Structure formats: C-alpha cells, structure tokens
C-alpha cells in the first residue's frame, strides 16, 4: 500500500543534549509509519506571514518504537532551521514533518551483512538507527562502526555505543582528528585507506558498507573501500557538507 507522504503535525516529546552542538528531538507523530533505518524526515517551519523553510534530518531511532521518532540535529551556526530547532523549540511544541523518506541508504536486519559503517561527525545519525535496529531486532550480523569525530566531546551517542559494542558482534572504532585525551588508544587521524583496511579487514570483501559524513570523508572512504575489494554496489553513501544549513 502506497500513500502520499502527507505533512503532519508532530509534537515534541523530549529534547536531549547529545554534545555541545547536537540535540536529539523526540517527536510523537499522529500518522507514524514504520521507517527503515537510514531514512529521514523533512521538517518544515512556517512563519506567521507564511514564509517557509524546509530541511531533512536523519532518523536516529529504530523502527521498533511505534508512534515516535528521534531526529538528531547538529546546530549549524549560520543555519536557518537547525538554530530554531536548538534555540527555540521546547517540549510540547508542534513541528510540521513528513516522511519517512529515502530508499537506498537503508539497512534492515533482513539486508544481512557483514555490516561496515563509517561515519564522520553527525553522519553517525542514520548509522545509529541501523545499530539500534540491529540490536532491537536481535540481529547477529557482524558489524563494525568506524566513527570520526573532532574530539571526544564531539562524539555523539558515546555511552550508548559502548553499551551496544559490549554485545555480540559489534565493534566500534573511534578516530579523533583534532585532539585526543591523555592515554587515548584509538585512532588519531583522518580516515585513510590503511585505517579502513584494518577496520574492514576482518569483515571480508563481502561487507555491505554505509558511509555518511562530509563529502571529503565520504569520497575518501568510498574510493578506498572499492580499492580494498568491496563491490561498488555494496558501498552506499550519504553526504552532508558545509551546506545543509
């Protein structure tokens, strides 16, 4: 059954500060439909005089939470929609949204694996939906996440990732590109081919890869994974750059 993607008025149920620049907004949707991990919602803001602005935000929550979705939003300083969502929106407010949208950058437990996830910054959001879905669905597909952040304080979902990684079959690798805490034993450079070879190696070349982050990271990673032997049709990308304000 296909139906048009109608705009609906969601209600803000909760707002959580993830990092200094990142918040998760939990929306209750009157017309909720199960999404696929990796999909997004469009958010539309309307001013009193009718002026509108729209942006897309990835869903962070798994589909196993009927009636609501989490959108994790990075605040873009000169943006139009994200500063509103960060600075103005409060619990109980109404937000116009439509979705879920997107049909290629999606992973379901039935999609199999092994699963290689590579994220830069808030590019981790749709990948987190995949990992949460994997856990909620009880999937045992081997999975590895390589996650690039500027500093440890910029890592989104850090504690939850630790908790998820203590379960069967998921390993999480961090790289911190701008500063590392004392005693840091993870990677400390931008993602490159040797790093990808180390992280992806144990998954083999049959891995299904999802990459989300800034253009440079996505370009580097996708090209490197093809060179490392992954089939190009099993390397899926989603990008955001300095735009997306």
């Amino acid at each position: 059954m296909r139906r048009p993607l109608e705009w609906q008025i969601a209600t803000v149920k909760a707002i959580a500060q993830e990092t200094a620049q990142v918040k998760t907004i939990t929306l209750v949707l009157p017309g909720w439909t199960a999404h696929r991990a990796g999909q997004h919602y469009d958010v539309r803001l309307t001013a009193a005089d009718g002026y509108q602005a729209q942006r897309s935000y990835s869903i962070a929550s798994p589909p196993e939470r009927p009636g609501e979705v989490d959108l994790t939003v990075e605040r873009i300083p000169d943006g139009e929609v994200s500063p509103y969502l960060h600075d103005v929106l409060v619990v109980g407010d109404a937000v116009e949204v439509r979705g879920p949208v997107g049909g290629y950058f999606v992973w379901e437990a039935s999609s199999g694996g092994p699963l290689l996830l590579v994220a830069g910054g808030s590019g981790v959001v749709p990948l987190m939906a995949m990992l949460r879905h994997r856990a909620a669905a009880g999937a045992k597909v081997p999975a590895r996440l390589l996650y690039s952040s500027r500093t440890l304080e910029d890592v989104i979902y850090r504690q939850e990732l630790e908790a998820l990684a203590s379960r069967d079959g998921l390993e999480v690798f961090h790289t911190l590109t701008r500063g590392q805490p004392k005693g840091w034993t993870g990677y400390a450079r931008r993602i490159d081919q040797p790093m990808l070879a180390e992280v992806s190696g144990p998954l083999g070349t049959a891995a299904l890869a999802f990459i989300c982050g800034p253009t440079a990271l996505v370009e580097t990673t996708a090209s490197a994974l093809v060179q490392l032997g992954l089939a190009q049709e099993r390397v899926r990308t989603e990008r955001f750059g300095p735009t997306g304000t």
Partner: protein
Amino acid sequence: MSQKFVSRGFTGKRERAGGQGARVPPGQHLVSDFPVLSAGPTPRTDLARWTFTIDGLVTAPVSWSWADFQHLPVQDFVKDISCVTKWTKLDTRWRGVSVDTLFEHVELDPRAVALIASCDGGYTTNLLLSDALNGQAFVAYEYDGKPLAPEHGGPARLVVPHLYFWKSAKWVRGLRLVNKDAPGFWESLGYHIRGDPWKEQRYTDD
C-alpha cells in the same frame, strides 16, 4: 498542505534569498557552494575507454568516443539548479552539448516518448522527451570554466536544470529511447517520476 500552521517563534532568514527569492522554488534555500550527493562510490572512467551512446528506439544507434564528443558543437549554459535535498544554486556555468545536437545524429522512432540515461556506476534516470528537447537538457563536461570534477559527475554529466538535480545524471554514458516513461534509480526508490521543483514534485505522489 498546512493552511494555518505556524511554527511558534520562527521568523526565518529571508535575507538569504538576497532579492532573488523569485528564482528559488518552494521549500528550497540558496547555497553558494556546490554540495556533492551520490548514492555510491565515484566511478573513475578512463577517457580512452569512454563512449557516449544513443540507442533504443532509433533507426540506427550512434556512439561517440571522448575525442569525437569534443568535436560536437558546444554551447555555454548559465542555469539555476535545485536539488531535492533542498538547496538551490543560481547562475551555474556549464559547457556541453545539447541533447538536441546529439539527436541530430539519430532518427527517432515515432514510438519514442521518453529516455533512460545510463551511467558509470549503474545509475539511471528517466526523462520524457518533452523534458529533454528544445534546449532543456545537455551533456556537460565543463563546470565554471574547468573540466567537470569526478565528484560532480565528470568526465560528463547530463544537466536538466528545470528538474530536480537527480535527473542531471552524473557520469552519464548513454541515452536509450523508449516507448514508455519508466522509473529510473531514484524514481524507483520513492522519488517523483518527473521532479519539477516549481511544483515541488519531490516524492512519488507529490
């Protein structure tokens, strides 16, 4: 559509349109950079093996090498482009060969009503002939005075500026004429069959 919904406390940053608001389709915002979006790895095609082919419902298919393609009559285009991910970029400067020029080299079967563009990497997109002819579409190989960068679709991409930019297939290698407008890659994955930004035809049933 919402009739009276207002986002509490939202005023917006309208100065972004800089007096060019009439050129920005609904739900879009202006950017000055050129975002890169694609579904998979950027293909790298050796120009020595690059060809561009028109086939399907034509009397005789035609194919050009990269060198031959460079000898086709070239045109400069300055166009506004809109991506379904909500950005619009004004006055983008392209050089390429119009689809009209390419079609001068084939005889179209009268049953041909649409085309499927195919690309390195397996991407496809569909266009009605009525959206591809009469100066509306071209195969570009220069952007802003330089060879088109691979991440932007180089060596050559289709540019159909009056439709959402997923129709402007990167790494395009051929056009196949068909007798029925059938969905390509994104059109099969929830995006609109035609994609007119002024009608905000983003998703399948918009």
